[in-house]
């Protein structure tokens, strides 16, 4: 009784009933891989909830205080107020440590979900028209997520994250022409610039969450408007959508997923220790620990910076120092390529049709191969970020491990490229595929009366109207 009356109340004021009707009956394809994006979104919500709690105790100040809290190995030591506040959260605030650990585990899971979601979208071709906008928004979200994660784990000002922040400063410094200004303005002066912690805090709790929420909102609104894609199926055409309705089934399942995710993160947050900053000690720029690595999603930059040789460009009293190439140029190229991918692909496929049916990766061998090679490259770089840990675990020198990884970073992606391509072709030729077509020939009549034919490979069923571009 309550809900219909509420609905009427809103409808009299907002005319909401027709929207409510459409929404509740909306069709939601529910292949499990479509839920990765939801997991990213729900992780974000969990991060905001736990993060808000933490922000009530965290102090973004580098001014030195003397610690006299319960953790004895640091008793009497000078440290930043920020670091001391995180010690307080960890050792003195009730539910502080569990919320802090849930927050950090959630960050690792969120970036993982975003990455795997992007991989799913890429390999199934869901970024093609009309979804290019959402692809771009998605890559932006990936960048924002990585950025907010980096800002977040740098806030405790411990020896491990402080070392990473120092490297970030040096990469900014290495930018040609504007590098010194960039570093001095962003950080607030020569390193260790004290303003940076407060700025990272503002970025981490205000600017970046607002941007993520806004871009995510647009991302969702576009999905809502365009409707989700479908995997190809028997008698499912490009202009039809198939799945359960939002209400009640999908809504319940989705809400359930949120709570289960939260539960898993809570279990990790309570039972699996993460980022024990008291072991690393407070950050002092004059020392650093061996076996220092960033959080996993920054690993590819760490690996790039370790593997790239000491090549610098020096001309006429100016130089482009080495960290610029692996630290700024390489990520720039990779993320730029990701952003532009729908149009890069269109250069080769000349495909301007609208696609609401996904592709099986094997049906697009060359795209799948390029994706596999890129993921392999980034994977090798991520592993290379822990080159010293790897070297000591297999008992060889860092020098040898670096040399090996340099070759692997070049050779393995090339191998992945060819192997994946031929694997796709093999799978296609041998498989019983519900919508396999070897070639589709389209005959088009041009405006001037001539005919031309185009052939395409594979793909799903599409209506005649779609193929003719009507």
């Amino acid at each position, binding site marked *: 009784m309550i809900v219909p009356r509420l609905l009427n109340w809103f409808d009299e004021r907002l005319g909401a009933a027709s929207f409510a009707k459409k929404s509740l009956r909306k069709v939601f394809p*529910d292949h499990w*891989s479509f839920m990765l994006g939801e997991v990213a979104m729900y992780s974000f919500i969990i991060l905001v909830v736990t993060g808000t709690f933490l922000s009530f105790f965290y102090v973004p100040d580098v001014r030195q205080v003397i610690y006299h809290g319960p953790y004895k190995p640091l008793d009497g030591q000078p440290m930043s107020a920020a670091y001391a506040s995180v010690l307080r959260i960890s050792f003195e605030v009730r539910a502080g440590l569990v919320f802090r650990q849930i927050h950090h585990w959630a960050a690792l899971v969120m970036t993982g979900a975003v990455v795997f979601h992007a991989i799913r979208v890429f390999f199934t071709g869901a970024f093609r028209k009309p979804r290019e906008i959402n692809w771009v928004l998605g890559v932006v979200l990936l960048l924002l997520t990585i950025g907010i994660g980096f800002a977040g784990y740098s806030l405790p000002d411990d*020896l491990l994250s402080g070392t990473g922040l120092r490297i970030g400063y040096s990469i900014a410094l290495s930018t040609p022409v504007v590098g010194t200004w960039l570093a001095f303005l962003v950080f607030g002066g020569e390193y260790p610039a004290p303003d940076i912690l407060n700025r990272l805090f503002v970025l981490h709790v205000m600017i970046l969450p607002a941007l993520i929420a806004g871009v995510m909102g647009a991302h969702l609104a576009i999905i809502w408007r365009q409707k989700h894609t479908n995997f190809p199926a028997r008698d499912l055409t490009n202009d039809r959508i198939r799945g359960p309705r939002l209400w009640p089934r999908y809504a319940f399942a989705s809400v359930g997923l949120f709570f289960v995710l939260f539960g898993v993160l809570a279990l990790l947050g309570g039972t699996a220790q993460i980022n024990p900053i008291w072991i690393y000690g407070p950050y002092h720029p004059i020392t650093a620990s061996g076996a220092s690595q960033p959080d996993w999603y920054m690993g590819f930059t760490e690996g790039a910076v370790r593997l790239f040789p000491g090549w610098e460009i020096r001309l006429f009293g100016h130089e482009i120092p080495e960290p610029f190439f692996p630290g700024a140029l390489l990520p720039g190229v990779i993320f730029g390529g990701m952003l532009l991918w729908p149009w890069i692909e269109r250069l080769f496929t000349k495909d301007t049709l609208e696609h609401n049916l996904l592709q099986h990766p094997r049906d697009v061998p060359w795209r799948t191969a390029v994706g596999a090679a890129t993921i392999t490259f980034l994977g090798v770089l991520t592993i290379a970020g822990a080159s*010293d840990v790897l070297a000591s675990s297999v008992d060889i020198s860092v020098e040898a491990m670096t040399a090996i990884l340099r070759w692997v970073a070049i050779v393995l992606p090339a191998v992945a490229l060819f192997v994946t391509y031929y694997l796709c072709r093999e799978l296609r030729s041998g498989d019983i595929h519900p919508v396999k077509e070897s070639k589709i020939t389209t005959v088009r009549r041009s405006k001037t009366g001539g005919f031309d034919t185009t052939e395409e490979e594979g793909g799903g069923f599409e209506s005649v109207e779609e193929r003719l571009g009507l």
Partner: protein
Amino acid sequence: MSGERARRAGSASRGRRAAGFALLFAAFMVPAGLAILAGTGSASAGAPPVTRLDAQTALEAAGQVLYEEHCASCHGATGEGTAQGPVILDLGPAAYDFMMSTGRMPLAQPGAQAVRKPPTLTPAEIEAITAYLVTLSPGSGTPIPNVQPLLGNLSEGEQIYQLNCAPCHGANGNGGAVGVQAAPSLHKATPTQIGEAVRIGPGTMPVFDQTVISDQQLNSLARYVLYLRHPANPGGISLHLGGPVVEGFVGLVIGLGAVVLVMRFIGERS
């Protein structure tokens, strides 16, 4: 101070050992013969006579026997070194005790990096060999430090550790790769061994003498190193304090993996 060390790892075959002994014997006989002929002391040759007389105690005598059995083939009959092992004269008892009590010496193979392993020599044997070696160059080298962790200050130890030790041994004390070698894990070291290592700088480790780390600071440092064996882990399973590498693995494989399984349960799986 650490001397030259043979880079090439070779296997000590019986033939080479015999040849080594023959060489050593000749090396002593020649200057000894010269000394007798010239009527001068042993100063010109630099090699003291192999056998001592009644100045040796029983412990030192036992040590000499053990030394000749386990060590002389690489380190020379009187610690002056061979192609396979560096000079160990003048190092002092701290070095001898450290190397033997951590099992680094005797080496399994000459030339390999000495790593901790279960010692093949008993504490009594170690004491004996140490006593003997000290007699070869009395008064020189580093004495065995008297490390009292309980007199140390835990927080002071933490500060010293982060500045001097963490770069190679890691903030967690697990050790790590250091160029062509590896800084070992510290979790099995006794307080004395910690002190000895700090004072002698074994292998490629630098030396930290009293002007850098005073004796009281050494107590504090040892106390903190011992703490790292069982540090406070209020957050739960410590994952060996493995850091972001392990955490990333757990977060993605276990955390996200569990969620993916739930997703597959919820959704369509075709």
